[in-house]
């Protein structure tokens, strides 16, 4: 051989170093992801607390004084929640298997609790502030157990993007076994997954987009998409 045998060992060490550099960049980005999720969570919690305070004030000073502010805060919270949910899910997929997955599960639990709070606030505001917004509760489980949950999530994402502020979709992960989510599942008699609750009525099984729109129009005919339908 015309080169030193050490060249094999040198190449091995350099390749290990390159792999370590890539792994370190990924670890660094993961810590940044956790910081970003925590910051978004704090922002959403802050908006939620603001809305809770406004709801208390509504009881003291009446709807006229607070509804406008509540509606605008609601829009902010809706966007924040949507962004946060997407971030937790996409970052968790990147980190799964080889990174600190427990962090994202913890954030997901926190996120689901915030959604329960958001839902109860929205129910109160909707009645008192005459808000034309439809509510969909979506109950799902892990994709390995619930084979159609990914498809239902896609349909609801599509509906949410299409109808924007006119519909509020709340997704609850039943695998997290949160007491508050369990109350919702037993109250709405959720026995199979995926399941949806549209305006208080339970719809088990996968529903496609035209069917969800049909149910929405049946329940809340004031939605803009219903006006174009015969």
């Amino acid at each position, binding site marked *: *051989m015309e*080169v030193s045998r050490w*060249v*094999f060992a040198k*190449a091995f060490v*350099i390749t290990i170093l390159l792999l370590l550099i890539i792994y370190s960049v990924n670890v660094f980005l993961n810590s940044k992801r956790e910081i970003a999720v925590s910051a978004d969570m704090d922002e959403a919690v802050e908006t939620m607390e603001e809305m809770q305070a406004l709801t208390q004030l509504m009881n003291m000073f009446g709807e006229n004084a607070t509804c406008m502010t509540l509606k605008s805060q609601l829009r902010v919270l809706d966007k924040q929640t949507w962004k946060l949910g997407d971030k937790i899910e996409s970052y968790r997929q*990147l980190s799964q298997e*080889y990174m600190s997955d427990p962090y994202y599960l913890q954030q997901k639990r926190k996120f689901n609790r915030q959604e329960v709070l958001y839902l109860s606030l929205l129910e109160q505001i909707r009645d008192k502030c005459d808000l034309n917004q439809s509510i969909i509760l979506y109950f799902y489980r892990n994709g390995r157990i619930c084979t159609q949950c990914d498809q239902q999530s896609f349909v609801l994402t599509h509906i949410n993007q299409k109808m924007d502020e006119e519909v509020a979709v709340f997704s609850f992960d039943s695998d997290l076994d949160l007491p508050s989510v369990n109350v919702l599942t037993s109250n709405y008699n959720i026995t199979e997954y995926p399941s949806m609750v549209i305006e208080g009525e339970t719809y088990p099984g996968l529903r496609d*987009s035209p069917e969800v729109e049909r149910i929405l129009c049946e329940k809340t005919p004031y939605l803009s998409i219903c006006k174009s339908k015969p």
Partner: protein
Amino acid sequence: MDIVYTLLTLTVWFLSTYFVVLVLLVVFEKRKDMRQNRNTSKTPFVSIVMPAYNEESSILPALKSLCDIDYPKDKYEVIVVNDGSNDRTCDIIGHFISSQKTTTFVYINRKENKGKAHSLNEGIDAAQGEFVGTMDSDSQVKPDILRKTVGLFADSKVGAVTVRVHVQDPKNLLERIVDLEYVVGLSLSNRILSYLDCMHVTPGPFSIYRMTMMKEIGGFDVRNITEDMEIAFRIHKARYRIVNTLSTGVYTKVPSTFGALYKQRKRWYTGSLDTLMQHPDVLFNRRLGAFGLFFLPINYATITLGLVLGLYSFWMLLSTVLKNIQYLILTNFEILPFTFPDIDILKLSLFHFLMVGSIISVLSLTKASMSAVQRRLRENVLALAGFVLFFIPYQIFWLSSFYSVFTGKKVKWR
């Protein structure tokens, strides 16, 4: 991503990157020596064997290039073996040889087609040289081919010398991509493997062998369809070295269509697997040094795991496409106005970094290869892009070859 896919990706990445790093380290260590040649004043007698089968369109330039070799005319002979051609090859050879006065030609005209390895052996049996060169009849050697190779046999352990393989006049994009592939795979890589004593092939377009060694190992294996690779394994087993020089070379034609490339590669890769199955004792063989302990295990592991990874990725891509079709059905094919997704650098995953790392590896290897043969990468940007994407057809070629080997399907030369 599931854990199996992640581990598979990391393993393939590690093995392929390790090879690139090794090549670059050797390039750095041998940067002054890379294009040096060991000229010698000695002019031993050399025989060049050229088998031909239905080569009427390309044999004439091949014969002419042999006459133009800058070497004493009484010190080399050309043995042309017509392997039962049924076109005008026989007539062309006959006319050409009869018009030649200076170069010594021996013509073996066989009516029956017996295959390339058989023809080479027949030519070697008739050869008088101390060294015997073998050449494809669609190739053209450089005039200094003998002067720059015979000197390398000064080391008695050198059994074969290989040269740079140039692509002859690449025109279309495919030929230019293959040209780049030859620069990387049959120029720099072979030079580096030569330094590491890991040459696994003595390329068919032109290689030259020590005659005593050739007799010792019994010539080419007539059952193997990649006889130039199989013989390299036996050269290693006989404890001879195969060395490479970039200071001279041979021009050869490459497939100009994808179908022709598929046929060629299927033969190469099937032959490569057959050769390994024929010589399983080479793997992890300490006697064979780096060739048995390092090169062959890493090479075949990267190929096999790379193929599994490719199939796995294809399956994942296919299931994603099917899933998206299903989603479109569920939303009644309603396409919402397109909105640009937020650019979020934090969505970059380990796989993105590994992919960037692999692209940098390929580019570095290509750059080093182009520098080694004094060519400029900038002139081949389009071919370079195609070369980077060429891992997809490679997977198809390898898959088809694995299938042929495991189902026992015979792959023919043509």
